[in-house]
């Protein structure tokens, strides 16, 4: 990637923001229809405390869901890799959970799980665990057959094969799954918050967005959206950096 390509997205973003602000100013679009970037920044600053508290609430759900999703995905993938029976039993249900929209399951979970935080984390976990599961399972299954032969020729136990060969081979797959799961956990957290907000809970960013909508505070709504977008990008970037650091440390590449 050369310098021009590196700065292209930033330049494009700045031009788009300038055009946006220019159009809103010149055409006198009322802020309750479409605020300009400057108006949004004002709203973000004016309401920074409540928005940051909401962001923290959403991020804590996201983080808890990501941890739960990683653990759940890993455990299920290991179970699936260790026995064909377990694989046959688990796989279809994992797909069922994956294809059912979380918006549809969330009301049930919120009724069943009495504690708000736990209920939201459960919803976000359902959204986020699948890439960890499928990637880790694919990674465990993709162990080079020649290396498996080599381990067997040397009398390796199942445990040694898992610990010294299959798990490390699956690591790059697993890390890629975690990166996707991070952003999905945020999506899941926000979706679950929306469902919960309609029932009266409203501590996260989704609550601020709904509330702004009711009050026609559109700049504040955009401000909350901006925070969500930045949080999503930050999660993706941080997990991507962790992934690269870990792989570079282990394999000395990329």
């Amino acid at each position, binding site marked *: 990637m050369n310098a021009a390509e590196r700065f292209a997205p930033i330049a494009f973003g700045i031009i788009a923001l300038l055009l946006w602000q220019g159009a809103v100013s010149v055409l006198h679009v009322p802020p309750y229809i479409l605020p300009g970037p400057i108006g949004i920044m004002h709203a973000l600053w004016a309401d920074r405390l409540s928005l940051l508290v909401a962001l923290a609430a959403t991020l804590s759900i996201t983080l808890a869901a990501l941890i739960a999703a990683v653990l759940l995905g890993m455990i299920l993938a290991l179970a699936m890799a260790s026995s064909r029976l377990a694989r046959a039993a688990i796989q279809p249900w994992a797909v069922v959970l994956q294809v059912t929209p979380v918006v549809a399951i969330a009301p049930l979970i919120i009724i069943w799980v009495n504690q708000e935080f736990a209920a939201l984390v459960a919803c976000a976990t359902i959204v986020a665990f699948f890439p960890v599961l499928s990637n880790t399972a694919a990674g465990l299954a993709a162990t080079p057959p*020649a290396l498996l032969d*080599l381990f*067997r*020729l*040397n*009398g390796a136990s199942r445990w040694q094969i898992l610990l*010294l060969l299959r798990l490390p081979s699956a690591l790059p797959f697993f890390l890629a799954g975690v990166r996707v799961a991070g952003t999905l956990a945020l999506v899941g957290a926000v979706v679950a918050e929306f469902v919960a907000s309609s029932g009266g809970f409203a501590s996260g960013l989704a609550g601020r967005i709904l509330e702004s909508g009711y009050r026609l505070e559109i700049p504040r709504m955009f401000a909350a959206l901006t925070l969500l977008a930045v949080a999503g990008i930050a999660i993706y970037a941080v997990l991507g950096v962790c992934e690269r650091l870990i792989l570079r440390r*282990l*394999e000395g*590449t990329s």
Partner: protein
Amino acid sequence: MLRLTGAGRHFDNGTIALADIDLRIEAGEFVALLGPSGCGKSTLLRLLAGLDIPDSGALAWDARAAPSPGEIGFVFQDATLLPWASAARNVFLPLRLAGHGFASSLPEINSLLDRLGLGGFEGAKPAFLSGGMKMRVAIARAMIRRPRLLLMDEPFAALDEFTRHRLQADLRALWREQGGTVVFVTHSIYEAAYLASRIVVMTPRPGRIATEITSTISSEADDRRIDPAYFALVSEVTDALHAVMPA
């Protein structure tokens, strides 16, 4: 040391890979299995390793020669190193699986790597090694436990000519130094003629043994590649191979 009698192997899709193989390997031999692609050479090697079981016939080891885990070394077409482990750690793998410690094995590992021209690269991860160097690490890994039987499946096929000649020379020298028995699969007549003490020529699918040719090149020859006996062997093997190929 071991023998296959009447061994056959077919796959689920109906392909007959091997039919009626009678092959005896004596201790201390360097046997080349030579044949066109798809003649079942690799399958035969897997049968010898015990990684695969013949559908018919049997594999029998001589009494007292039956291998325990780690006594068969295997070198694959690709180096198949662990990408997260250094050269030394890769060579250590068979020892580790046998319960040895790294520190106490290190002198032995380093001297073998050194012997294979990898002195100074003990700590390098595979990503920083060339194709030939990776194959050298794979050979060291297969030899570190001084296997009774070393099986090699076209290990040099993916290397350039210069690297291949160097590795062939080093492998032969190492075999002469350390003893042991080697079965080496190749589709190169020249490689077989240079390396082997006996060449087993196989037919195309289904793989059968067409003929066996014992090398007459003196083991004391200064340069095997220009020895008159080498050229005679190459032309004899070429004739044998042409005889089994469909016109």
